[in-house]
């Protein structure tokens, strides 16, 4: 067994497959360590303002590596950091505060969104603020006045009146557009957001944060809920590998033992296992899983259990049965009976180990099959309700018409990972088949 595995090194395809799998495992381990379980769940559940500073449906950053692409990244400026803030006592309690948030904009495309977040401190009278937008070509646009309540926010992009003033362009476009250019294109240079506020109370204060949402984000982009898809890909890798491995191990071992039991006892035990298998082979697994998912639970553990259960009575039980029928007749089994081995011992210690070398290559190719199954379930909306997985990313993408709207990257990440998984395990599995199945070796 060990020597057989050692022989794998002579098959380049196995090495490539192994490299792929090891990479995936590395990714999974990194993901699990970098983002602890609870953190991952919290992130993926979203809610609160966890993702508020992330752009919606942004592409991955690496698209800028393609020539001709220079899409904006997200720019975040705050009066506490990066901006300037001056406070002046006007008279008595009244203070004025002048906040200037300046940034250099050098991208070829417009931002995807603009948001202003206020962080005032007051007891009774909220501060009042006037907002101005200074463009590189010296224009000064008034964005309006407002009194700033607690955690007030100004969604610039949603300001319809502003849009109308900007020739009907959405604010994130209009504010950056070059008025001299014949077509809509951003004007590059220093922009500044000016916030002039009045504080009415002693101890009152005001801070402002400007988020100029880009069109690219992170390694994998973001989804419709501004969530960083990378999180799902990292954790999805761990979930997929664990699910595939557990399902494959669980179902293979159970199948093996049940097949051995059927063959050893024969008679009605064998017959009923056969019938159950046949029944199970006619019944399609997917609808059963859908039924369980919709009616009972979508927890990945429940689904794993059902998958293993359905996997036990699969076509492979017939294959193992055929092998066990031969093993049962082998002289060493007869010898073990002669020196008094009991039924259970014969099944577990004499029959099952004999078949494991036959099982290994098939087992290796079974793993991706279960990974795909889990993904398919998630795509159908039956993914685990809390865990981030590849399938759920795909499910989101599909529900939001990702391909139709051109959000190819949304599908790309999980699809590539699924393919790598399939490819990696298949390459190892095929090489193993050659080693364990000497008749193929000459090929």
């Amino acid at each position: 067994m060990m020597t057989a595995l050692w022989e794998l090194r002579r098959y380049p395809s196995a090495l490539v497959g192994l490299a792929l799998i090891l990479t995936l495992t590395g990714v999974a381990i990194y993901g699990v360590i970098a983002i602890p379980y609870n953190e991952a769940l919290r992130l993926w559940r979203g809610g609160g303002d966890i993702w508020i500073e992330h752009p919606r449906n942004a592409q991955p950053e690496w698209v800028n590596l393609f020539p001709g692409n220079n899409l904006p990244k997200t720019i975040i400026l705050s009066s506490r950091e990066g901006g300037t803030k001056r406070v002046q006592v006007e008279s008595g309690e009244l203070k004025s505060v002048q906040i200037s948030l300046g940034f250099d904009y050098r991208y070829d495309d417009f931002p995807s969104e603009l948001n202003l977040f206020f962080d005032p401190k007051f007891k009774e009278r909220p501060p009042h603020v006037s907002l101005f937008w200074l463009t590189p070509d010296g224009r000064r646009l008034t964005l309006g006045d407002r009194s700033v309540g607690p955690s007030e926010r100004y969604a610039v992009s949603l300001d319809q009146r502003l849009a109308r003033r900007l020739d009907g362009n959405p604010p994130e476009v209009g504010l950056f557009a070059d008025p001299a250019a014949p077509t809509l294109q951003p004007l590059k240079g220093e922009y500044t957001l000016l916030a002039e506020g009045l504080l009415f109370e002693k101890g009152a204060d005001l801070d402002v944060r400007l988020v100029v949402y880009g069109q690219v984000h992170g390694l994998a982009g973001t989804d419709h809920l501004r969530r960083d898809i990378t999180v799902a890909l990292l954790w999805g890798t761990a979930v997929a590998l664990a699910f595939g491995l557990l399902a494959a191990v669980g179902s293979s071992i159970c199948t093996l033992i049940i097949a051995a039991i059927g063959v050893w006892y024969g008679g009605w035990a064998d017959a009923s296992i056969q019938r159950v298998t046949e029944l199970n082979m006619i019944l399609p697994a997917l609808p059963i899983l859908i039924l369980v998912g919709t009616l009972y639970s979508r927890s990945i553990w429940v689904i794993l259990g059902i998958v293993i259960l359905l996997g036990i009575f699969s076509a492979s039980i017939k294959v193992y049965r055929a092998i066990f029928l031969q093993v049962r007749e082998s002289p060493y089994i007869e010898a073990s009976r002669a020196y008094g081995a009991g039924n259970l011992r014969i099944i577990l210690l004499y029959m099952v180990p004999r078949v494991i070398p036959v099982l290994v290559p098939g087992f290796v190719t079974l793993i991706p099959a279960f990974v795909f199954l889990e993904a398919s379930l998630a795509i159908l909306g039956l993914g685990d309700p809390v865990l981030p997985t590849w399938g759920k990313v795909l499910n989101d993408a599909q529900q939001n018409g990702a391909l139709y709207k051109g959000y190819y990257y949304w599908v790309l990440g999980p699809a590539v990972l699924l393919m790598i998984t399939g490819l990696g395990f298949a390459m190892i599995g095929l090489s193993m088949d050659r080693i364990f199945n000497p008749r193929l070796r000459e090929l």
Partner: protein
Amino acid sequence: MQDEPLLEVRDLHVWFGLRRWGFGHAGVVRAVDGVSFTLRPGEAAAVVGESGSGKSTLAKAILGLNRPAKGQVIFEGKPLDSLKPREMRWYRSQLGYVQQDPYGALPPFMSVRRILGEPLVINKVGSKPEREQRIREALEEVKLTPVEDFLPKFPHMLSGGQQQRVVIARSTIMQPRLLVADEPVSMLDASVRVEILELLQKQQEAHNLLLIYITHDLSTARHFVQRILVMYAAKIVEQASVEQLLDNPLHPYTRALIAAIPEPDPENAATFKDVPPGEPPSLLHPPTGCRFHPRCPAFMKGICDVKEPPDFEPQVGHLVACWLYERGQVES
């Protein structure tokens, strides 16, 4: 030699129903059909017969691995079919079994240490260090030394002869009183055969075992046992000591068998062998009367094909199932 018999086989029948397409019976193979003999402790006996004559089936019935349709195997006066499960376990610990194909007889995924340990573990013998000690002694007895080298090896790392020695070590590790060796050397090279048979003989003598050596090879039987039982078509047709059987074979089948066995002699090339015509009968529909009668040169019409010959004893200790000896006469 006047011990009580250790093993008695009494009118043993083992039949296999042949099933057709899973329904109904296509017939019954009478693989062992009325076999009786008695053997004493410390005796070495050979069952000699052609392929398909029922030797292995007989062995398995003695080992309690298949169920007789009729008749009994009696060990130390206790019929096997009356043993309770616990007694059966005891009986199994009194038995050793050496099979034909040494490689197949060893689980390929177990090391020699584990293979030899299994019978001890199963029969709950001793503590772990005691078992290890027994395993080492067993390997030394079959001359697989240095023991350390062999303990961790797997069957495929051993030659056929070494594998068979492991099988023998396993079969004697429980210190049984009966050893059944079913064609223990037929898969081995001629140069190794003798070595293995000598080993079996040594074990048999050292532990005062009753050895049942099953073979199709009369020439090896001659050198390693004292008593020979000749089997033809599911029946024992002649039993006698080696000297009686070879010097004075009585049954026409035994005579034909002995005549057909060649020696390395250049004269052979010049002569044709005298071989009875035909082939052994099907055990589905064996001939009536004496089963050898269609091939027998001494066939007596009206007798041999009508009634089955019982065992006659024309000489003391020489049993033969042939009508020629009805009146006890012995041809020379």
